[in-house]
């Protein structure tokens, strides 16, 4: 591989890192609160909002149902509204985070639901308000599951980011398609794949280690 190609590979890696990294942070800060709300507003929960709960659930399902490539195109007007452009890394971050957020919200919801009801009852009995219960009971007790779910989200986002080339955002996936698939450059294809595999393995390893540490308490 030429030094020029290595340079492109490095740039593509950085693009993927930016897209996935920024989108993951957005998904985390929107998806987890959504999940908390879904759990608390479910029947018999601490917040009485059955209608909001149902509407939110339906919206989340809608976004989850749309294939990422469709979402990417369908969201173009919205993307332009937010970032002022429809091409480039930042233009990919908008649909990527919008697709990852409901995904993470559903996964986080499962972990939060697993928190024993007795713990919430005990927290109420010692004078915790709703916010205290979220802060001291729900989130810390569900943390191993949340970390595991976040890891899965990141890995699936790395996969989805391959389609970001459609809006000229570049990244590893785009490079593999352009050089490896369209130009039959097997070396580049294999190199990109190797970087992707290494990245995914690293992310998974970090996630698993964190979960194991948290569960060891």
């Amino acid at each position, binding site marked *: 591989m030429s030094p020029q190609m290595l340079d492109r590979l490095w740039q593509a890696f950085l693009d993927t890192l930016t897209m996935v990294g920024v989108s993951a942070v957005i998904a985390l800060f929107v998806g987890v609160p959504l999940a908390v709300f879904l759990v608390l507003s479910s029947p018999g929960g601490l917040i009485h909002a059955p209608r909001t709960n149902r509407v939110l659930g339906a919206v989340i399902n809608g976004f989850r149902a749309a294939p990422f490539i469709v979402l990417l195109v369908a969201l173009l007007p919205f993307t332009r509204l937010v970032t002022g452009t429809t091409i480039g890394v930042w233009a990919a971050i908008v649909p990527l985070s919008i697709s990852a957020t409901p995904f993470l919200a559903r996964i986080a919801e499962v972990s939060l639901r697993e928190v024993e009801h007795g713990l919430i009852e*005990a927290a109420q009995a010692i004078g915790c308000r709703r916010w205290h219960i979220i802060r001291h009971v729900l989130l810390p007790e569900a943390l191993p599951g949340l970390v595991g779910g976040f890891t899965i989200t990141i890995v699936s986002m790395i996969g989805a980011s391959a389609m970001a080339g459609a809006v000229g955002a570049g990244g590893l996936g785009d490079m593999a398609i352009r050089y490896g698939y369209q130009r039959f450059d097997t070396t580049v294809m294999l190199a990109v794949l190797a970087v992707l595999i290494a990245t995914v393995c690293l992310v998974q390893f970090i996630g698993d280690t964190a979960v194991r540490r948290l569960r060891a*308490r």
Partner: protein
Amino acid sequence: MSLAFLGGADHPISETGAVARHHAKSERRPGAASNAGLSSTHVTPAAGSVRFEGVEKVYTSSAGRVEALKDISIDIPAGAIFGIIGRSGAGKSSLLRTINRLERPTAGRMLVDGQDIAAYGEDELVALRRRVGMIFQHFNLLSAKTVFGNVALPLLVAGVGAAEIEARVAEVLKLVGLEGKETTYPSRLSGGQKQRVGIARALVSRPEILLCDEATSALDPETTLSILSLLKDINRRLGLTIVLITHEMSVIREICDEVLVLEAGRIAETGPVWKVFGNPRHDATQALLAPLTRGLPEEIASRMTPNPVDDASLAIIEFAYTGEGGREPDLARLVALLGPEARIVQSQLDRIDGHLSGRLIVSAPASGDLPSRLSGQDLVNAARIIGYVPANA
């Protein structure tokens, strides 16, 4: 104010037949003793008194209406250890959770320290729950927090300063015998230790009332006894009211002053423990007491006949002590009553708060005037011949 509730004839509670009996044991306590001196008609409830007035709880769901509690009126004096027992599904859990409003009554008044908490809003509930501690069957400790973190949480969410939290947590951990375990996570503790953490967490904000939800049901017998004696000790030293629910009569027997038997959401029977144990009136009470009572020895039961087979037959007599009237098993007088051949077959006597209760099974020659001698006796609360066995035993 406990004693003012105690069923003066003019008090409405005594007319509805609710419990309002006080108790020799609780009067000895420092907390209760100070209350006993007051006798004004104006009722100023002491810290830690609980009173149910016609409380009802109805659950309505798609499956229909379930009446979990019906017409519950109880007085729990400050400083008492009050036990609620019932079979599973009797409504014990709902009853206990009404006191800290984890359950909201659908009708009636629920008074804690004279304040009706039935309609409390969130702020008032948070304040109430800081005065009412609770411990659970499955401990409900936060696995992500250390022992210190668990015990400190009630103070932390109440906005108490770090230095005070540290001092207070150290104090309660010492009280429950868990010094040095501050940095341990609950998963590394035994069941008994976990419940001690639960007790420490419940006590850290100096509550007036401690609610125990089957607190020993998940523990082995030895640990159960140690936790019960800890609860007793806490009740004595801190003067706080303990309300506990259990399905084990032995727990009631061990530490309670008063007991309430709940059956299908209603009060089946209530009163001092010695009275309810000595003379259980309700089927539910008898069923719950059954595990504590042994049956007749097999070799007697199998040979027993309703009438004497011959002159040499022995009568099997049951002497029942209910704790009333200070009857004592005076051996010399029993022999005088039954004759020198009398033998004790089986004894299940116990003293609860100085009241003798239980039964004594005795055999004696079945001479003709035995029934009349028994009916004239004043040694025991009740004496009856339960059958006869042939003499060649």
